[in-house]
């Protein structure tokens, strides 16, 4: 792909600046069922995105039908789109940051591993889960490997490249005892093939599923609640848009005028760290080519400021934070700083509470702007400082902004999820739990 020629063509059409990004990805996906591979998917797809500035406005296109003739048409489309924009906002194509952080490339070539090895490992995962006597079925077992490369280049001379290769696997077991049915899985992502241990993955899945058998609902009332590190990451994730400069500018966050003010309790430290070594991916630069950097979003409970892209940085007269991803402002690896208490010590202080290990329906049960959430959940009852029995079919409800000010303790068990959010388990003073009477 001759991006240089395309940039020149764009400039000759009257665009003042042109940016082209090309991403190429290929993947292999294997699905096992009842001891054999039932689906095998291979792919390779390239996508070109062009952004161009025409008379001060930015136009955008993205396309998969790639030819010189198509690029010509798409550049016209960029101009056409830019002409429609009426909003008076800065349109910027970036000349580049002074320097970029170095990150270790994930370049293990998964395609070098023999196919029969992958097939047999995935079948091991599926059949090991299935072999457990309480497992009635394995809904699906998946192994997928991805390899992607991207080029970001523009008329200001920027030329950045990145590569990423990783694989993941999981198997969803259906556990049954009498009329009680539940499902459990463990998702594991790895950067070298050696890290894939199907037996271990199967055993974690089985352990999770067995623990949950015999789950019951709970009487409706307020309980002290412990969110597992994974579920609190989920909550941090759904509310992360509130720290975006764009949300502030569009009046879509209650933190609009709260920079420098206390919005959480004193030991609440929320950090966006693109390079955190325990996160799954380290990110050197964002989609506009801005170098990524670590920053506190909330420090000692005080809101430190919004994450931005180049447009918002210019409008708010701030330094760019390197958070432009997917056409909007997004976090990199955002995590809540852990405390010092072990998980067991945290539970030990609770007499009658609920430990939540799963939240379902996050896209529907959360009102981000008002902070209200009401979510289907499952987990365990806590009695006299110990995990007592499994619980399901309950709803946990509250307000996230209240939760940020009502954490009794934070555990030391920081864990990142695949989407880049991380959290320790946290103990919330009191939340509404609704359940059913049989």
């Amino acid at each position: 792909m001759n991006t240089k020629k395309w940039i020149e063509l764009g400039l000759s059409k009257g665009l003042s600046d042109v940016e082209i990004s090309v991403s190429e990805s290929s993947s292999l996906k294997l699905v096992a069922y009842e001891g054999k591979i039932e689906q095998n998917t291979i792919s390779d797809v390239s996508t070109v995105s062009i952004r161009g500035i025409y008379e001060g406005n930015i136009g955008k296109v993205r396309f998969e039908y790639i030819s010189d003739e198509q690029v010509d048409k798409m550049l016209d489309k960029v101009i056409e789109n830019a002409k429609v924009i009426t909003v008076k906002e800065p349109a910027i194509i970036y000349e580049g940051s002074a320097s970029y952080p170095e990150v270790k490339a994930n370049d293990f070539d998964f395609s070098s591993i023999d196919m029969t090895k992958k097939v047999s490992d995935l079948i091991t995962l599926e059949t090991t889960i299935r072999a457990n006597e309480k497992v009635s079925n394995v809904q699906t077992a998946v192994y997928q490997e991805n390899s992607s490369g991207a080029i970001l280049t523009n008329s200001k001379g920027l030329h950045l490249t990145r590569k990423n290769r990783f694989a993941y696997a999981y198997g969803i077991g259906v556990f049954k005892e009498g009329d009680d049915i539940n499902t459990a899985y463990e998702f594991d992502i790895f950067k070298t093939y050696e890290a894939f241990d199907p037996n271990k993955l199967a055993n974690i899945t089985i352990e999770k599923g067995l623990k949950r058998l015999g789950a019951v609902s709970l009487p409706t009332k307020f309980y002290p609640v412990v969110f597992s590190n994974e579920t609190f990451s989920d909550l941090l994730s759904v509310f992360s848009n509130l720290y975006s400069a764009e949300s502030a500018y569009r009046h879509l966050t209650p933190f609009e005028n709260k920079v420098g003010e206390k919005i959480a309790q004193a030991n609440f430290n929320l950090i966006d760290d693109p390079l955190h070594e325990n996160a799954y991916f380290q990110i050197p630069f964002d989609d506009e080519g801005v170098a990524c950097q670590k920053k506190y979003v909330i420090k000692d409970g005080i809101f430190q400021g919004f994450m931005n892209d180049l447009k918002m940085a210019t409008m708010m007269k701030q330094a760019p934070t390197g958070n432009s991803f997917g056409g909007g402002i997004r976090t990199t690896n955002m995590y809540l700083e852990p405390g010092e208490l072990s998980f067991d010590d945290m539970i030990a202080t609770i007499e009658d509470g609920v430990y939540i290990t799963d939240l379902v329906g996050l896209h529907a049960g959360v009102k981000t702007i008002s902070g209200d959430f009401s979510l289907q959940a499952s987990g365990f009852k806590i009695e006299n400082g110990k995990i007592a029995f499994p619980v399901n079919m309950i709803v946990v409800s509250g307000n996230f902004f209240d939760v940020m000010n009502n954490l009794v303790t934070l555990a030391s068990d920081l864990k990142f999820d695949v989407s880049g959010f991380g959290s320790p388990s946290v103990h919330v003073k009191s939340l509404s739990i609704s359940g059913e009477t049989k």
Partner: protein
Amino acid sequence: MLKKEVIQALLDEALETGADFAELFFEDTNQEVIRVTSKDVSNVSYNNVHGVGVRLIKNNDVVYGYSNEVSEDKVRALIVSLRASFHGKKKEAVALKDALPFDNKIKRPMEAVSAKEKTDKLLALSEVILSHDPKIVQSITQLLSWKQSILVANSNGTYQDDERHYARVILMGVASENGQMQQVFEGPGRAMGFEIFDDIDTFALAKDVAERAVHMLSAQPIVAQEMPVVLANGWGGVIFHEACGHPLEATAVAKGLSPFTGKLGQAIGSSVVTAYDDGDVDGAWGRTSFDDEGMKTQKNLLIENGILKSYLVDYRNGLTMNHKPTGSGRRQNYKFPPTSRMNTTYIAPGKDKVEDIIKDTKYGLYAKQLGGGQVSPATGEFNFAVSEGYMIEDGKLTTPVKGAMLIGKGHEVLFKIDRVADNLDFGQGMCGSISGSIPTDVGQPTIRVSKMTVGGSGGQA
């Protein structure tokens, strides 16, 4: 696009190592998004999805490959790589038939409408929301439209093209008072061109969005409890979609993962429940003339007076289940192999009047607007959020409530439906599952569920 003779030859080659079935799916989709924020056009973007998917099946095992490069050489390379999974005697592909005509009755294709006409409409709608009340602090209006052109050809002789036009209008209002904020969203969609604005009174809807956002500022958190729930018509159908639609898909049934497996001819719900999935409702968001396997779409009776009549079945699962395909093979795009999915799914109207249902409810929740939901087909557990609700006390609507979350088990809730009104209506959404995100309609008349667990933060009953 490849010539028909070339496609025929490629299908033949695909069966060389013993596959029972081969299919090529070609797609070119062009999508446009125009967004207005308050008084300005803030974003215009264009997205093209273009490629080919190759599927081979033998004994119900599937190999699938896809690429954005649509050339004879590339498709052949995919075929050679995919068919290596199979070892058997060569089979013959059936000669490709002629494509059947389709008429999607599009009056004003989006590409023929000027950008100005589109932005004028969005700006006017945004103004309706913004100017409705001083408490409205933000409005966003969007027009999403795309045209998907597909051609599917398979070794059973199917050769079918289709052209799907989609239009969706997004209306959002945010109200704020005393540091409290409430957002309300509507997103009606149609398989139409710009005539969507003639079909839907978007100005009335914009006003309604603003009014509800302001109204919800005074809503109280609902008290968590079990109680009867009256679900309003239209979007209320999302309960049936999540709780029963997904578990009726062959994807779940074929593997015995659904509570409805093996229940054809048996009662799976109360006798007031009759339900359909229809792939061929004129202009409906969930409609296609032909499904993504090239089969003509049809109206499927799923449940009749509580008795299970049919599942939703695609070609491959149909072989396993020994069940005729129902025209329900769908996929987001060429990057997914198709599987059984819903189109326009609804509970049929009954004879009750809404006023009577509310009057006969001593205490309960009236769920006027629902947010999204989710279901686990294996356990039947579902949840969905009530975005606008009112308490029912002594047969009358009283306090507005917020934060209500309804949970239940699909196979149980169907038996708890005790009243069905006569006011069938529909709502539109994007439904996500293993073959991607696709437009679907949900629908129902107003119904009552005799008892549900309702979550909320408002203290104890």
